[in-house]
C-alpha cells in the first residue's frame, strides 16, 4: 500500500504539520463502462467492492453513492457486533463476519477500533430465560462462544444494572458473548473505501441512481445524475432505499422501510465497559470511547423514508434505560437521529441473485446490519463474481419467500437486532 499508515508515517507527516497526507481515496468522474457497479457507498457496499477487487480480481468496478460514503445507516447505527444468533444459517453468516472483524484493522491498515468488550442480553421473564438458555446451547453447537449468567453473575459483570426483584421487569438472568463488542462505524466505511480505492475501484460520491436500463432479461446499465454508466453487473446495497432501486428495475421486494432511532448522551467518564441489550423492554446501551452513552431505540411501525422517528419510541426506550440503570437518571441526551432500515418479514437479510440477470441485491438487514458488514461484503462479492451464492449465504436468497424456507430470526435473535 503506497500510503501505509504506521508510527513512521505519523512521525514523517508530523514534520510537515500533517498537511501533506495523501487523500485516502480519489474523487473520480465515472467511466463509460464498468465490469460491475455497486449501488450504495455504505459499509456493506464498500466492503463488497473491496472483496470484489481483492478476492475476485475485479478491478474495473465502481461504487456509486447518492450522498457521501458512510453517510447513511453506516454512520447512524449503535455499532454493536455479535454473532449469537439462534438458527444455523444466521449463526454461520454472522460468525463469518465476526471472524473477519477480528483481523480487520490489520488487513485494512486502518484502525476500525474493534473492541471485544462483550455483549450481554438480559432476560426479564421466564420465557426469556428459556429462550436465552436455548440460544446459548444452539450457539455452542455452532461453535459460537456463549454463556448463561444468573442474576448475581449479571450484576457482577455489569455492576450498574439494577437487579432488584422489585422493578417492573426484574433481571432474571442473561447471556454473554465475550467475543462480541463494538467498532467505530465511520472507520469501517473509510477503511474499506481506502482499501478499495487503492486497488483501483472508483468511488463516486454525490451520484444518485435514477434508473436501471434493461436489455430483455439482463441489466445493461445505470442512469445516474452523473450520466449513463454501462455495466452488466449491478449489486444493489441501498439499505432503506432498496425497494426504490428495485422498483426502477420493475422488481418488488419483500421489504418495508421504517425509521430506527438512536441517541447519545453527553460524554462522561467510563461507567459501562460492555454492551447490554434487553429485548423485552427494548433498551440497549454501551459507551463510546468519547464517553457518550450510545442508546438504541426501536423502529416506528409505519413505513417512512423521512429519517425522523417518533418521540414516544425514544421515551419508551429511556423509561426502560432509567429503570435498569437508575444511575443515568440525570444524564442529558446530546443528539438523537433516525435512519431508514429495510425489514424483511422474517427479519433476516437477502444476499441474492434476482430474476433479472446481472442484478443482485444485498438488503433486508433491518435493524442489525452493521455487525455483518465484513461478512456481508465478502459473501455478496462472491455472489456477484460467480453468479452463484456462497454456501454461507445460500439460505438468504430471495426465493425463500416463494419456497417458504424462511430464516425466522424474528424474536429468535437476542434482541430486535
Amino acid at each position, binding site marked *: 500500500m503506497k500510503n501505509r499508515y504506521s508510527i513512521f508515517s505519523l512521525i514523517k507527516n508530523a514534520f510537515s504539520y500533517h498537511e501533506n497526507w495523501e487523500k485516502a481515496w480519489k474523487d473520480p468522474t465515472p467511466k463509460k463502462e464498468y465490469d460491475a457497479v455497486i449501488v450504495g457507498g455504505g459499509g456493506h457496499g464498500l466492503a463488497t467492492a473491496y472483496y470484489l477487487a481483492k478476492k475476485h480480481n475485479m478491478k474495473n468496478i465502481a461504487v456509486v453513492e447518492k450522498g457521501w460514503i458512510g453517510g447513511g445507516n453506516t454512520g447512524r447505527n449503535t455499532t454493536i457486533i455479535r454473532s449469537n444468533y439462534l438458527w444455523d444459517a444466521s449463526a454461520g453468516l454472522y460468525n463469518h463476519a465476526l471472524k473477519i472483524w477480528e483481523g480487520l484493522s490489520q488487513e485494512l491498515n486502518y484502525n476500525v477500533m474493534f473492541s471485544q468488550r462483550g455483549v450481554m442480553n438480559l432476560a426479564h421473564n421466564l420465557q426469556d430465560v428459556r429462550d436465552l438458555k436455548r440460544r446459548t446451547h444452539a450457539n455452542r453447537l455452532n461453535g459460537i462462544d456463549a454463556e448463561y449468567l444468573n442474576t448475581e453473575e449479571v450484576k457482577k459483570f455489569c455492576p450498574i444494572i439494577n437487579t432488584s426483584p422489585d422493578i417492573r421487569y426484574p433481571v432474571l438472568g442473561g447471556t454473554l458473548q465475550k467475543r462480541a463488542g463494538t467498532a467505530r462505524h465511520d472507520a469501517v466505511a473509510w477503511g474499506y473505501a481506502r482499501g478499495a480505492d487503492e486497488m483501483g475501484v472508483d468511488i463516486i460520491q454525490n451520484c444518485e441512481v435514477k434508473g436501471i436500463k434493461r436489455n430483455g432479461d439482463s441489466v445493461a446499465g445505470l442512469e445516474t445524475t452523473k450520466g449513463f454508466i454501462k455495466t452488466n453487473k449491478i449489486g444493489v446495497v441501498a439499505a432503506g432505499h432498496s425497494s426504490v432501486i428495485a422498483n426502477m428495475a420493475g422488481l418488488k421486494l419483500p421489504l418495508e422501510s421504517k425509521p430506527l432511532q438512536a441517541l447519545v448522551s453527553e460524554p462522561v467518564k467510563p461507567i459501562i465497559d460492555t454492551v447490554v441489550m434487553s429485548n423485552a423492554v427494548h433498551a440497549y446501551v454501551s459507551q463510546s470511547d468519547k464517553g457518550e452513552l450510545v442508546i438504541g431505540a426501536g423502529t416506528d411501525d409505519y413505513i417512512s423514508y423521512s429519517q425522523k422517528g417518533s418521540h414516544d419510541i425514544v421515551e419508551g426506550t429511556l423509561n426502560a434505560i432509567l429503570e435498569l440503570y437508575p444511575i443515568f437518571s440525570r444524564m442529558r441526551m446530546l443528539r438523537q437521529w433516525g435512519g431508514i432500515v429495510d425489514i424483511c418479514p422474517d427479519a433476516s437479510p437477502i444476499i441474492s441473485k434476482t430474476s433479472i440477470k446481472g442484478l443482485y441485491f444485498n438488503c433486508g438487514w433491518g435493524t442489525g446490519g452493521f455487525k455483518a458488514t465484513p461478512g456481508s461484503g465478502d459473501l455478496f462479492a462472491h455472489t456477484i463474481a460467480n453468479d452463484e451464492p456462497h454456501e454461507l449465504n445460500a439460505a438468504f436468497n430471495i426465493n425463500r419467500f*416463494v419456497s417458504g424456507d424462511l430464516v425466522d430470526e424474528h424474536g429468535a435473535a437476542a434482541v430486535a437486532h
Partner: protein
Amino acid sequence: MFIINCPFCGEREQSEFKAGGEAHIERPKQPTELSDDEWAEYLFMRKNIKGIQFERWNHIHGCRKWFNMVRDTSNDEIKAIYKMGEKPPVK
C-alpha cells in the same frame, strides 16, 4: 410522529394508532388455485413506496376501527383519509 384524523374519533396522536401496511391488496379469491409465486406476491412482496402510498391504519388505542390513508412516506405528510370500502381518492 404526527397527528392522525381518525374518521370516527377525530384528531389523535399517531402513537394511538397501529400501521397496517400497504392497502388495497386483495385477498385471493381462489386460494387453492394459487401458485407459490402468487402466494409470495400476496403475502410478502410490497411496493414500499418512497412518496405517495396508500395504506391501512387501525386506531388500536381508540375506536379500534380500520381505515385507509394516503400518505407521503418521504415526509410523513397525510394527503387523505377514507373509510374501508370507500374508493381511494384520485392522486
